[in-house]
């Protein structure tokens, strides 16, 4: 009892601080409550309209969360929350909004697939969103691990949710890779804790502990790389990308679309936060300058090459989108490596546009699946004349994914490339130039495989036997049209998005 006396005095203050911080976390708490509500709803809502009811409930929860974020959860200046485990700044707010946007689209896409799935599906979806939002704020190794793990467990379950053999295989692969990645990350974190004696990466002790001359540079670098491996796994950067094609193929389509956006963007935010604290320490320690840009840049280049070149050989539309998502990860990582406000703005723009075009692509693949009964690109032969609406939209979205005008995909790529060039020409490392050149070269490769789908749609002859399984619904048609329209609109009105991003420019 006597030993506890000194810790009691600040206890009241820290409890009060936690109570004060709670309003800023209402968005996450809303989602957490939403998970429970959806589970209750799955028990209580009668089977006849359960899927629709749960989807609408999830939409309401996401909308409420976004409302809380925009009207209650904006701090005037960067703050640390919950005993310095979370760091809430404008960057975190921007990434949380992007996560919510992708969650909204994922629920809208789920109306068809949801019929075949049980009520837990929406609960897991909301859980994944909550974890991704926490990931983009976490600044404590413990919370970083917890949020990544929550997101991963939801993702494993969602992957295996379709129930079939394919889904079970994909889920198991994802689970095994994920477990190894998080074990590696945890080991790195334990080393970092051993070096610094603190879990808080924003604390002064963390930096000074790493910079102290007593520790040789090699173990510190090893620990940092082990931790980064866990992040790179979530972003699906080569060599941690092996789970991606199988998981996207086996998972329900809306869940796959969500995997390629929300956890990826949150992982990028986490990486930016981690590197920004680590970089200052990493540059100086032991008198040696360690070039993070070089090593991570190398990984980004390999990711772009592997993603794009492997996508060329894919016959299945879902696998093609998976490799395209790996390729996009490379480019997003390149934008992170600029380490400047410009690169950050480009990253946000790219992330926003990427959500729109990726969900549009997955939605169109699901519509074409409903109309042709197949995910094979070869089965899209000659559909251009029969299914003119979906086909035209598919062309627009594929052009956007390639990064060609007149779509916002072009603007996004242009911004990333110019940020890389700016970074290089204002005295940055020559790695930025290599990243830029690889990005340009792989865009040409991307042209080849993305335009394969329009090629099959319009220039190939339709086979005689046509099976019409079921048509696409009106909601799907409207949503796909709206997404494609936005992609074109934001090419001409990129300043609307830029104005929004300006409001969230880094202010640390």
């Amino acid at each position, binding site marked *: *009892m006597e030993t506890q006396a000194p810790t*009691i005095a600040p*206890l*009241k203050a820290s*409890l009060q601080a936690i109570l004060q911080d709670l309003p800023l976390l209402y968005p996450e708490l809303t989602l957490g409550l939403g998970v429970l509500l959806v*589970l*209750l709803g*799955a*028990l209580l809502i009668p089977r006849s309209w359960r899927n629709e009811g749960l989807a609408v409930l999830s939409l309401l929860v996401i909308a409420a969360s976004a409302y809380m974020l925009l009207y209650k959860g904006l701090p005037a200046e960067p703050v640390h929350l919950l005993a310095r485990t979370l760091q809430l700044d404008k960057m975190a707010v921007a990434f949380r909004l992007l996560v919510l946007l992708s969650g909204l689209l994922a629920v809208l896409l789920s109306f068809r697939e949801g019929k075949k799935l049980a009520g837990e599906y929406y609960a897991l979806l909301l859980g994944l969103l909550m974890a991704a939002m926490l990931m983009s704020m976490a600044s404590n190794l413990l919370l970083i691990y917890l949020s990544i793990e929550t997101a991963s467990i939801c993702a494993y379950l969602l992957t295996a949710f379709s129930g079939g053999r394919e889904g079970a295989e994909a889920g198991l692969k994802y689970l095994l890779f994920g477990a190894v990645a998080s074990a590696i990350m945890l080991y790195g974190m334990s080393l970092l804790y051993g070096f610094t004696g603190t879990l808080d990466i924003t604390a002064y002790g963390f930096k000074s502990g790493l910079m102290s001359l007593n520790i040789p540079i090699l173990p510190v670098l090893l620990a940092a790389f082990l931790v980064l491996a866990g992040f790179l796994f979530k972003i699906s950067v080569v060599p941690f990308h092996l789970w991606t094609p199988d998981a996207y193929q086996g998972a329900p389509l809306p869940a796959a679309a969500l995997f390629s956006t929300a956890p990826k963007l949150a992982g990028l935010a986490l990486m930016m936060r981690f590197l920004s604290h680590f970089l200052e320490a990493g540059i100086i320690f032991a008198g040696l300058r360690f070039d993070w840009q070089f090593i991570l840049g190398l990984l980004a280049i390999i990711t772009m090459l592997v993603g794009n070149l492997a996508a060329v050989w894919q016959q299945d539309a879902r696998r093609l989108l998976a490799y395209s998502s790996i390729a996009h990860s490379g480019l997003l990582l390149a934008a992170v490596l600029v380490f400047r406000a410009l690169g950050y703005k480009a990253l946000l723009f790219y992330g926003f546009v990427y959500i729109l075009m990726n969900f549009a692509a997955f939605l169109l693949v699901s519509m074409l699946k409903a109309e042709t009964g197949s995910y094979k690109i070869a089965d899209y032969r000659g559909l251009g004349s029969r299914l003119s609406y979906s086909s035209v939209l598919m062309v627009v979205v594929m052009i956007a994914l390639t990064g060609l005008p007149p779509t916002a995909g072009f603007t996004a790529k242009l911004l990333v490339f110019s940020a890389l060039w700016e970074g290089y020409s204002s005295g940055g490392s020559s790695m930025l130039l290599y990243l830029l050149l690889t990005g340009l070269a792989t865009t040409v490769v991307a042209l080849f495989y993305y335009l394969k789908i329009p090629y099959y749609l319009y220039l190939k002859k339709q086979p005689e036997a046509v099976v019409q399984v079921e048509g696409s619904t009106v909601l799907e048609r409207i949503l796909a049209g709206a997404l494609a329209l936005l992609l074109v609109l934001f090419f001409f009105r990129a300043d609307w998005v830029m104005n929004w991003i300006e409001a969230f420019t880094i202010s640390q």
Partner: protein
Amino acid sequence: MLNPAVSSFGEILLYLIGGIVFVAGALLTAWIIRPSRPNVEKLATYESGEEPVGSAWGQFNVRFYIVALVFILFDVELVFLFPWATVFGKKALIDATDGMWGWFAFVEMTIFVAILGLGLAWAWAKGLLDWVKPEPVVKQQGSPVPPGLYEQINRTVAAAARAEQRKQKE
């Protein structure tokens, strides 16, 4: 209160001794009060109701896993509840925070238990806790002989056997 002279390792030793005494006491009591009537079944090695000898690759009913999962869920809950209970009621902490400490601990644990309760309700409502015995499938042979005929034969055979027995007794 423990004697402060006992070191931390001394406490572990006390736990060890206590554990051994507890188990040995239970066995000893059972040995004293139970009647001793051994048979083959009782003398076989106990293996959770399974056949103790044979391949370990046998297939288990999948319901075992669900029940085991639900059990572990509440087992872990209990493990959390014990340390919680020791700090929940600490008067010094409650006084130092004007009672806020108690409310925090109470609300946090209520949320935790409520979530687990919802999980149990879910498993219950989904029928995962029902232990339905598999229905034995009766094979339909499709024989042209009506079942009544078999019964008739059985009766005749039984009557003949009884007559035989009576004869032998006489």
